[in-house]
């Protein structure tokens, strides 16, 4: 690609069959307590 650089290597829909375990951190427990910020959390699976 000459004009486009893609920052990530995986799509949301990749490995979708093995996702959804629910083991990830609850967002409010991290630092915020007043806002929901899910996108900055890590997958535990």
């Amino acid at each position: 690609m000459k004009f486009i650089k893609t920052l990530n290597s995986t799509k949301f829909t990749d490995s979708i069959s093995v996702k959804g375990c629910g083991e990830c951190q609850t967002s409010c427990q991290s630092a915020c307590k007043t806002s929901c910020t899910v996108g900055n959390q890590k997958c535990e699976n």
Partner: protein
Amino acid sequence: MIHLFNIDEMYFVTDINSGLVHVVDEIIYDLLIDEKFKDENKFSKLYSKYGKETVEEAISELNYLIEKEMLYTKETNIENKIKPAIKAMCLNMTHDCNLSCEYCFASQGTYNGEKGFLSFETGKKAFDFLVKSSGNRRNLEVDFFGGEPLMNFETIKELVEYGRKIEKEHNKHFRFTITTNGLLLDHEKINYINENMDNVVLSIDGRKETNDRMRKTQNLKGSYDVIINNFKNFVNKRGDKDYFARGTYTSYNLDFSEDVKHLRELGFDKISVEPVVASPNEKYAIKEEHVEILKKEYENLAKYYIECSNNDKKFQFFHFNIELDGGPCIYKRTIGCGAGTEYVAVTPNGDLYPCHQFVGQDEFVVGNVHEGITNDQMISKFKNVSVNEKAVCKECWAKYYCSGGCHANAYNFNKSFHIPYSVGCELEKKRIELSIYIKARS
């Protein structure tokens, strides 16, 4: 659906349904505006700026991405796979506080009720409820909260010991966190917390004048001079373990990047400063009229953040963290924070609420630690609030980053879980754009 934005002559396209983020040349950005690349009458107007051959080459790259489902990806029908199971808990160790912060959503720790301390017996019941209701989830989270939890420190120690005992019996893993104002943070407590808490939230708003305007002692004096030394001592002994120096900004410090700088210059390297949640009637509330000023302020902060990253003063700003690979799965991104479905708050008398923000509002009591969940009707309201069930969110490019925002904010401002808090949305979208920009620069 895609989202286009540019910052400092860098151009970005996010593909909402795949989650892919593309850094593009200006020509691609121009071709995507108004979908010019689809119509020769439109894209031929770019020949004079870029040349015909270059425009055609750029269009072929766009078509390649579309063919590979990396751009304009169609929405996948996501049926939630995450079964509801309560596995995280905000444990209000006290409904009392040794500070009297003007903006406190918990009404100076009492949540508009009576003062009280959580007993070991009630805490045990809460832990037992958590283990029982968590089903096959292994990781359980307990945040010792308040009021000020360190006013009930001995009970915290007893509960941690109890948690360590029952986690073995039930093949669970407790993650303990604590949120403290720092007044009682002496050496004994620092050592204990560093040994036992996975994450610690240290409440401080930044500069002395910012902090002391809101975070006052019972005698209405500023708290900065006491807490700053306690927090520095704490962080010096924290090692690599997680913590956040966590502040709140209000309409009084719209230049909050100066507060972040102050904290960084004092040595804190994990910082979160967030907008106050308050009724629009309060003088200190963040309102629509502040949004554009605050967006500029986040840009100022991003510049400082990048400068620090380039000169060995690197730090984490909670809202500039973003996981483009290895982040939460699409299911988690769709269902959101989990209030009432995987997360509850517990009061000293054992009542359960969908989250800490609703504590003290009787209509939101969903059960108690003795009987478990008894108000299924209220819980069901929290099960049907995924991003694709909210009209505003469904059409929003940021939906899989914020996952629909805070239910309490939505309810407080709009009396509906289905209409998000618009000021919060605007600020969150700005933070996401800047996070992506920072990621692209790193």
